[in-house]
């Protein structure tokens, strides 16, 4: 599982320069986690065919029959018709697939569905309550922080996570937390404006 929160205070570009070291560290952590789980449950092999996987998405149980290799993103998009989060780079670079799993942002294109069973998964589809938008979503609409809209779900989720983590987010914190998302239409200026506006709407400090 990739977690954007694990990244040190680098920009995406700085991070790429040290990606060799970073991914090594991630790999070690993941292996240890997997090992611990396997030891607890006794050795067992899943797949290669469909296996039952139950996810908890936006507070609802979603039972699925999928191959163990299916990612969280593909499981929800292709099997549960939760298509809000997008597949863009499909390898944990662009952030369009960003979901919140147990309070932390993850690249769902690089997270296996079987690995997040029993965890609270939040996608962009679950943020609005009926027609009532989440303040972050409302702020994006108000300042036109979107054009084609394909990166937008990822940016919205990343901004929600930012403001849940730092209700009084500084400019630097906001930029850093949103650096894992890429937009091709060029909405960054207004996405940043939306994040700051949402902070105020949600009761955070001005400025």
């Amino acid at each position, binding site marked *: 599982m990739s977690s954007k929160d694990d990244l040190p205070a680098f*920009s*995406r*570009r700085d991070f*790429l320069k040290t*990606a060799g070291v970073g991914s090594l560290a991630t790999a070690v952590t993941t292996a240890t986690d997997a090992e611990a789980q396997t030891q607890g449950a006794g050795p067992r092999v899943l797949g290669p065919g469909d296996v039952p996987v139950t996810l908890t998405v936006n507070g609802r149980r979603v039972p699925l029959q999928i*191959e163990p*290799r299916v990612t969280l993103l*593909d499981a929800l*998009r*292709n099997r549960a*018709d*939760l*298509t*809000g*989060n*997008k*597949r*863009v*780079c*499909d*390898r944990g*670079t*662009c952030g*369009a697939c960003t979901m919140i799993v147990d309070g932390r942002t993850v690249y769902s294109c690089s997270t296996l569905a079987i690995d997040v069973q029993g965890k609270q998964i939040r*996608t*962009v*589809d679950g943020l*609005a309550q009926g*027609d009532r*938008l989440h303040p972050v*979503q409302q702020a*994006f*609409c108000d300042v*036109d922080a*979107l*054009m*084609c*809209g*394909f990166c*937008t*779900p990822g940016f*919205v989720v990343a901004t929600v996570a930012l403001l849940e983590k730092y209700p009084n987010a500084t400019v630097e914190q*906001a*930029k*850093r937390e*949103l*650096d*894992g*998302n*890429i*937009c*091709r*239409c*060029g*909405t*960054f*200026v*207004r*996405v*940043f404006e939306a994040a700051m506006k949402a902070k105020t709407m949600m009761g955070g400090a001005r400025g």
Partner: protein
Amino acid sequence: MAKYSWPEKPTLISTPVKRLDGPDKVSGRAKYTYDVNRPGMIYGRMVRSPYPHAKITSIDLSAAEKAPGVKAVLEYRKAGDEVLYQGDPVAAVAADTEERARDAARLVRVRWEPLPHASNETLAMNADANKWSTTQANTRPGPRQETGDLDAGFKQAAHVIEQTYSTHVITHVCLETHGTVCEWDGDKLTAWVTTQAVHQCAQGYAQTLKIPQANVRVITQYMGGGFGSKFAPDSQGIICAQLAKKAGAPVKLMLDRKEEHLDTGNRPSAFAHIKAGVSSDGKLTAFDGQSWGTGGAGATSNFPLPYLYQFPNRRRAHTDVYINAGQQRAMRAPGHPQGCYLTEILMDELADRVKMDPVEFRLKNAPALNPNAQYQKYFVEGARRFGWEKRHPTGDPTRGPIKTGMGVSAHLWGGGGRGSQAHVDINPDGTVVVKCGTQDIGTGTRTIVAIVAAETLGLPVSAVTPQIGDTQYPFSGGSGGSTTAASVMPAIRVVCVDALDKLFEKVAPQLAAAAADLAAEGGKIFVKATPSKSLAWKDACKLLGTEPISVNGQWQDGLSSTGTSGVQFAEVTVDIETGIVRIKRILAIQDCGLIVDKLTAESQVYGGVIAAINFALFEDRILDRVTGQMVNPNMEMYLLAGMSDVPQIEVDLRNMPERGVIGIGEPPTVSTASAIANAVRNATGATIRSLPLHPHKVLAAIEQERAGGTI
């Protein structure tokens, strides 16, 4: 024409109106092609050439056909065919899950006879170069132009510069990759396509599949970026329809990120060897340019040169160079960013030769003031606003490794409209539905359709339902060349004016007035002379009984025009120890005729500027010269700006209502890279004559400058 002319005092047009589909997009409810899941749908996957140049010896689909879940296989090419680039499509499969389709695609056995390849312009132009194709030469001479007297021009020159300049290949990187969902009902095809041109796509399907166009419906409700690369069904669209036919099930075939880089277009490279002269008083006298570039495997690479500035005597010859790489496609202002960069760097070099300020030098050589050429105004106003007087001469004299510099650049674009048709229904319950077979590629077309209809009918935007993105609606052309707004808005205005006239006729007896004396505003229809004599919109529409007002119409001349201008300023810092360029701020002055929605129009200017920051500093399609493979067909090594890379950007959008609607998608992306490059030159004192401004090139130029000069 006066009947249809734009209102003198609009209440909605030119104001900031929020994007109508914003709530659908931010909530994930908006269904893009990638999100369409049809009952019984299966997944398509293509098999492509791993070689840049090869002959197909044989294709064996038998193992793939037997793989779990596979419902259809097809050969797209046949034994004996020549493939001309990495990613050239060869075959395809469809299976019940995406994962199984990928597995099956790997089982397609293709035998190849690899052929020598040419993977960059220089290698392809060598006398003993490998041939990109067994049937066509590596180069093709393009158009030649000559104006004035070149020899006389160079005789008038006090200074002459002779240098080679270049820009690189970049790919569109649409976030929603190219692809379609195809579903047959008997001999009728419905295709959800991520496209900038629904009607053109329907035509493409009909022609390629040899079926009547009447049997094809193309739908694009939402589209995740195209930038010029999404006008046709392409191989993946046709293959998807064929797989769906064979499998008897709807098929989704979306390309993956690597395929997107390899086979869905790119911006061609541009090179030019230029000799240019300037008189001692700073007037351009002569330009002699030999240019070349590659649009990949058999595609053109021409671009405008010299750009914008007036060389009275000039000659230019262009050569297309073919290499083994995916073909170019139109990319946001095709040709202009290249021509602009090549010319604007030269302009600063010439200005230094005559010891003139770059703004002053440009004022001397830019076109005279015209509605479509506002340079004389924008340079002066922009310089004042940007604090240009603080700019130091070439080379920041400040001590320490961080150097600061400013640069300026200008651009032009055509835009303009034609041909769109539209339909409006005013229903007896007061609802208004406007239909047009255009598409919203992210620019806000859906929103501005509603704005123009609402303005015309005197209603709030929310009272209008715009319906677009479907070939069941009246014809509108592809969204390219910044022509959508200027084509569609006049058509909407025409049908709504005509529909309102019909409603006035119905209402007139009730208000005891002549239809010609009525007006619609603020949700009411009233007598112009005595506004108290009025009917609420809903009550007026009730008079229709059971029969709605339905009007068809089309674009008419007089509501749009062509030709826009823009000037941009940039300030950068350059770390001369690392070569890293950071942009501090950018000012973009831009016009686009009548602004329809201030909010979404400004967004496009921001977007254009940011796209050009990528072109200047980050993105680069890198082909390995030995293997002919793209080294960075992904989004981690194909660099794009993130939030921290984006500077302060000031947008100064000028409204020119008297010119009608023109269009703004492309122009703002043209000159940013040149302004940045000139700012880097101003900071470092070193001239970098090729994009992108990657750190190693910046350092090399600084080294060269120290060793004896880059001039």
